[in-house]
């Protein structure tokens, strides 16, 4: 392997296209987190009084806990199969920056769990009694928050890649780290529903997303390399 023929951008696009194609061939697995999100947000009204005022109060919590858990659900499979069949090793050896390639894989996770969730969240929010005017705020917060959640979660997935049954361990690792995203995301959604200005929590969410996009690939590459040894 002297000089790679493709650059990082080309390789990343090819990797994303490959992972998306694989995910589409197994659309059942791919849609599971989305269905999980809808079920979780449906459970809240069933467990509570279905009063609109009460639902409106808990809507941010329901949306964000649902988003956090459904993002977690798909993490387990993020690296597992590629680690088992040797794809990750080839990626690590191919001479391109490993961080960039793993960032591409993380982007696929976001495209498959984060983006659909952002698109379907208005539906769940309306079912929970949020007014239409709140939708841009809720969507913007989820857009930024799911990016950060995918990046933070990917580090956890990389660390637990080589552990056999890692579902609950992954949750224990990732959920405390995701607390800031949860706090500011739910806060932004609550402000949006109340019709108040929500720039402050949105800026903080954006800051967390940028920080995660900067630092998470480094930790991720280190974690995956350890898992491959």
């Amino acid at each position, binding site marked *: 392997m002297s000089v790679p023929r493709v650059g990082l951008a080309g390789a990343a696009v090819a990797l994303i296209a490959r992972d998306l194609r694989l995910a589409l061939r197994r659309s059942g697995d791919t849609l599971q987190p989305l269905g999980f999100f809808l079920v979780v947000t449906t459970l809240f009204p069933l467990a509570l009084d279905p009063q609109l005022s009460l639902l409106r109060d808990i809507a941010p919590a329901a949306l964000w806990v649902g988003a956090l858990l459904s993002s977690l659900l798909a993490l387990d499979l993020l690296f597992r199969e590629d680690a088992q069949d040797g794809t990750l090793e080839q990626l690590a050896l191919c001479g391109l920056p490993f961080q960039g390639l793993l960032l591409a894989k993380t982007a696929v996770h976001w495209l498959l769990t984060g983006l659909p969730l952002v698109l379907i969240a208005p539906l769940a929010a309306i079912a929970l009694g949020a007014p239409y005017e709140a939708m841009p705020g809720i969507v913007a917060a989820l857009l930024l928050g799911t990016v950060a959640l995918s990046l933070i979660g990917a580090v956890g997935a990389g660390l*637990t890649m080589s*552990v056999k049954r890692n579902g609950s*361990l992954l949750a224990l690792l990732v959920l405390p780290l995701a607390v*800031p995203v949860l*706090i500011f995301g739910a806060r932004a959604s609550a402000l949006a529903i109340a019709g108040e200005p929500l720039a402050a929590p949105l800026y*903080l969410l954006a800051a967390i997303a940028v920080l995660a996009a900067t630092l998470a690939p480094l930790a991720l590459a280190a974690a995956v390399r350890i898992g491959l*040894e």
Partner: protein
Amino acid sequence: MAWVWFHRFGSPPHFYRLAGKLVPWFGWPAALLCLGGLIGGLLLAPPDYQQGDGFRIIYVHAPAAWLSLLVYVVMASSAAVGLIWRMTVAHAVAASCAVIGASFTALALATGMLWGRPMWGTYWEWDPRLTSELLLLFLYLGYMGLRSAMDDVGRADRASAVLAIVGVVNVPIIHYSVIWWNSLHQAPSVMKFGRPTMPAAMLVPLLLMLAGFSAYFLALLLVRARGELLRRERQARWMAEALLATTPRPPTPPSSTPTATGQVKPC
């Protein structure tokens, strides 16, 4: 060379001997400082004008909370040293920190709850400091969970080191986000400590307890790190020699007798 001490420190036999010698040098001061702090705090210090005798739990609570953070920083730094220089000793120290730190965190939480009952009227208040302490406990538990989930010691060392470093970047973010979250929700908590206004009769025992807890942590860390090295290096020749040197020799020639540890192989 200036770095010789560093590399010598990283050699398991040297660290094992040094740690064994240092344990009493931290252990006894810890006992004396804590004894002095407890006498000063529980008997000599005057009751608080607002909280009466209830405030005296601070002499356990504050040092435990202080150490819960300090231990995490020690754990993450030694994990980073282990990751960068591939030092077994540093990894062993980091691994030993986790249980100690989790215990101090649990102690700080428990005493905080006991304190909250008479002062706030409830065991649990979603106070920023209590909440971030709870999240710190989860971080410790995650670290320990990741370690125990991996069979291979070397891989567990490096993976948990990455986690500890990620955690130490996140601890301030989590802490401040919890503060902002809470300040947006409710008024500042009832209790505020005016640290500078604390009279010397209350402050000196607190400082004694802080020093005592820190010395206790160091002594405990050395004991645990020695144990960790015993487990990791049980096949090494120096370990057999070190154990034979410290255990009293049986009267019969040692060639045929198994020693008390049962792990020692003839070299």
